C-alpha cells in the first residue's frame, strides 16, 4: 500500500516535472478537420515534423520546443477558445495558426491583449493591414496575386478581360482585391460572372463571357473544385482565349482534377515550392524548398502543398527570431520577428519592418504556365 502510494506520488511528481524542464512552448490552432482541412492538415503535419527535426538537432538555444496543437475545425468560436487556452493555461510564448482568415481575425485580439506574438497562415490582407504590434503572417496576399497576374496581362498587351469568380470567401475576397487595383494596370473588366462553391457546371456563365465582344482573356479567382470545373468547361466551349487562374489552385492536384488536356496553357501565380524541381540552380529559394519538399514527402508520403509551406515559414521565422533574440520572452520574440531580414522561406524572401508584418514582394510569386500536365516558369 505504502509502496503503491510512493510510486504514484513519484509518478505524479515526474509527470508534473517533465514539461516544466523549461521547454519553449509554442502553440498552434489549426483547422485540421472541417471545410479547411486540406489547408490545416498539411500545416499541422509540417509543424509536428519540423519541431521533431529541430529538437533532434538539439533544439533552440539549447532548449527543446514543445508544440501544442489544437484543432479548431475552421470554427472561429472554437479557435478563440483555444487561443485563450493557449495563452492562459498553456502559457505559450508564441502562436502559429489561424488556418483561415475567419479564424485568424477572431483570435488576433486575444494575442494582442496578452502581448503574445502570433503568426497567421491565412491569406487576407486585413490580418496585417493595419499593422498590429503582435500579429504577423506568412502567406502572400490576394492583392499581390492580382498584381502578378495583371503584370503578366499587361506584358501580353491584354486590356479587356472577363472575370468569373467563386462566391465563396476566397473567390469573393480576391475578386474584390483584383477589381480594386485593376485600374492601375489600364485593364478593363467587360464581364463579371460568379459561381457557387459546389456548382457542377459553369458553361452558362462562360458562354456569356465568350459572347462578349472584345474580351482578350479570362481571369478566375477561385478555390477548391470550382476552378477545375471552370477549366474543363472552358475547354469544352473552346473559348480560345488565355485563361488565368489564381494561386488558390496552385497545386499538382489542380492539373489532375482539370485534366492535362483542358489545363494546357492555363497561367497562374504560384510559389517556388510548387516548382522546386525546375527552379534554376542559382535560385536563392531552391535549397530551402527542396529540403522541405523532400522531408515532408518522406515523413507523410503525401505531396507537399503551398499551405504546409506557410506553416514551415512561420515556424522557421519564429525559431530564427528566438535564436537571434537569445530569449524566449514573448516581447523579445516579437521584436526579433519584426527585425527579420532576408529570411529565405518557401513562399518568398522575407524582410519585415515595423510597417510591414508580411515582408514579401512580388518576387514571391512565379508566373507559371501548365504545359503537358506539368509546370513551366514563364518570366
Amino acid at each position, binding site marked *: 500500500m505504502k509502496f503503491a502510494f510512493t510510486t504514484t506520488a513519484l509518478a505524479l511528481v515526474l509527470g508534473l516535472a517533465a514539461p516544466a524542464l523549461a521547454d519553449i512552448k509554442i502553440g498552434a490552432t489549426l483547422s485540421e478537420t472541417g471545410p479547411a482541412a486540406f489547408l490545416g492538415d498539411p500545416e499541422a503535419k509540417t509543424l509536428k515534423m519540423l519541431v521533431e527535426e529541430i529538437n533532434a538537432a538539439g533544439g533552440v538555444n539549447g532548449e527543446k520546443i514543445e508544440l501544442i496543437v489544437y484543432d479548431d475545425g475552421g470554427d472561429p468560436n472554437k479557435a478563440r477558445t483555444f487561443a485563450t487556452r493557449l495563452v492562459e493555461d498553456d502559457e505559450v510564448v508564441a502562436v502559429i495558426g489561424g488556418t483561415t482568415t475567419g479564424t485568424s481575425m477572431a483570435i488576433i485580439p486575444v494575442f494582442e491583449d496578452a502581448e503574445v506574438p502570433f503568426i497567421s497562415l491565412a491569406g487576407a490582407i486585413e490580418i496585417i493591414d493595419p499593422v498590429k504590434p503582435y500579429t504577423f503572417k506568412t502567406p502572400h496576399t490576394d492583392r499581390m496575386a492580382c498584381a502578378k497576374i495583371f503584370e503578366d496581362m499587361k506584358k501580353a498587351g491584354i486590356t479587356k478581360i472577363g472575370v468569373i469568380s467563386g462566391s465563396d470567401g476566397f473567390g469573393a475576397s480576391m475578386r474584390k482585391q483584383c477589381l480594386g487595383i485593376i485600374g492601375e494596370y489600364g485593364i478593363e473588366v467587360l464581364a463579371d460572372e*460568379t459561381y457557387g462553391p459546389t456548382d*457542377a457546371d459553369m458553361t452558362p*456563365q462562360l458562354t456569356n463571357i465568350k459572347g462578349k465582344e472584345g474580351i482578350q482573356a479570362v481571369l478566375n479567382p477561385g478555390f*477548391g473544385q470550382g476552378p477545375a470545373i471552370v477549366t474543363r468547361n472552358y475547354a469544352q466551349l473552346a473559348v480560345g482565349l488565355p485563361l488565368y487562374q489564381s494561386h488558390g489552385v496552385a497545386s499538382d492536384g489542380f492539373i489532375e482534377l482539370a485534366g492535362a488536356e483542358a489545363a494546357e496553357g492555363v497561367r497562374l501565380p504560384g510559389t517556388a515550392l510548387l516548382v522546386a524541381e525546375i527552379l534554376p540552380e542559382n535560385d536563392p529559394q531552391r535549397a530551402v524548398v527542396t529540403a522541405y519538399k523532400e522531408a515532408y514527402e518522406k515523413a507523410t508520403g503525401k505531396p507537399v502543398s503551398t499551405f504546409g509551406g506557410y506553416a514551415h515559414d512561420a515556424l522557421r521565422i519564429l525559431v530564427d527570431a528566438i535564436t537571434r533574440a537569445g530569449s524566449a520572452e514573448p516581447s523579445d520574440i516579437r521584436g526579433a520577428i519584426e527585425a527579420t531580414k532576408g529570411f529565405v522561406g518557401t513562399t518568398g524572401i522575407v524582410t519585415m519592418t515595423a510597417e510591414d508584418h508580411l515582408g514579401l514582394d512580388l518576387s514571391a510569386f512565379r508566373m507559371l504556365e501548365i504545359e503537358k500536365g506539368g509546370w513551366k516558369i514563364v518570366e
Partner: protein
Amino acid sequence: MPELLQFLLSGITVGAVYALVALGFTIIYNASDVVNFAQGEFVMLGGMITFFAHAAGLPLPLAALIAIIATAAIGVALNKLAIEPARGAPVVSLIIITIGASIFIRGATQLVFDKQLHRFPAFSGDQPILIGGATILPQSLWVIAGALAIFFCLRLFFTRTLIGRAVLATANNRIAAQLVGINTNYVMTLSFAMSAAIGALAGVLVTPITLTGYDVGLALALKGFAAAMLGGMGNPKGALVGGLLLGVLEAMTAGYISSQYKDAAAFVVILAVLFAMPQGLFGRKSTDRV
C-alpha cells in the same frame, strides 16, 4: 440562339445529376416515409471508392462495381445499426438519425481516404459533342442515360414486381403489410441496399463531371432533395422531371439573369410550386382519415 441551346444542354447535364440523387431518395421514402439525408453520402462514397479502387490499379468498371456493392453494404449497415433499433420512433427522429449518419460517414471517409478532391477519367473521353453551335460532353450523356435507365427500372419495380408492391404496402401501412405476410424488416433492408446502390451508381457517373471529395454529399443531397420535393416526394417520375427542371432553371437564370441569383431563383420557383401544389408536381395526394 446557340446560347439558348448551350444553357439548355448545361441545365440538362446538371439536372440529370440532381435527378439521380432524387431517384435515390424515392425508394427509402416509399418504404418508410423517411427522407434519407445520407443519400448524398452514398453518391460521395460511390465516387470516392471508385477513385481509390481505380487508383489502386483496378480497371474502372470493376472499381465501379466494387464501389456500388460496398456502398450497398454500408446502406444495409445504416439500416441495421441505426434505423432498425429506432423502430417505432417518429419519422422526424428517423430523419435526424439519417442526418447524424451522414455526418458520421463524412467523418469516416476523411479518415479512411483523404481530404482531397478527386476525379477519374470520363468513360468515353472528353471530346465535346457539337450540337447546333452548342457543346455537351460525352459523360453528360452517360449521366442522362443513367438517370433514364434507373427511372424505368424503378417504375417497373414499383408497379410490376411483387416485392416492389410490398415496398409500397409497407410504406402505406406497416402493420397491415405485416398482417398480410410481408416481411417488413426485409423490405426496409432491401430499400436501403437499393437506394445506396443507386446513389453509388450516380456517384460513379457524375464524378468525371462534378469531381468528388469527402464533403460533396451535402450539397448534392440538398439539390436532390429540392428536386424530389419539386417533382413530388416518392415518385420516380417526379424525381426525374424535378431534377431536370431544377437544372434547366438554374442554367437559364445563370445565363439570362445573373449567376448571383441562380440558387435563389431555383428555390423561389420551388416554393411557388409547393404553395400551389403542396404535394409537388407528380406527388400522390395524401388524405388522413379521422
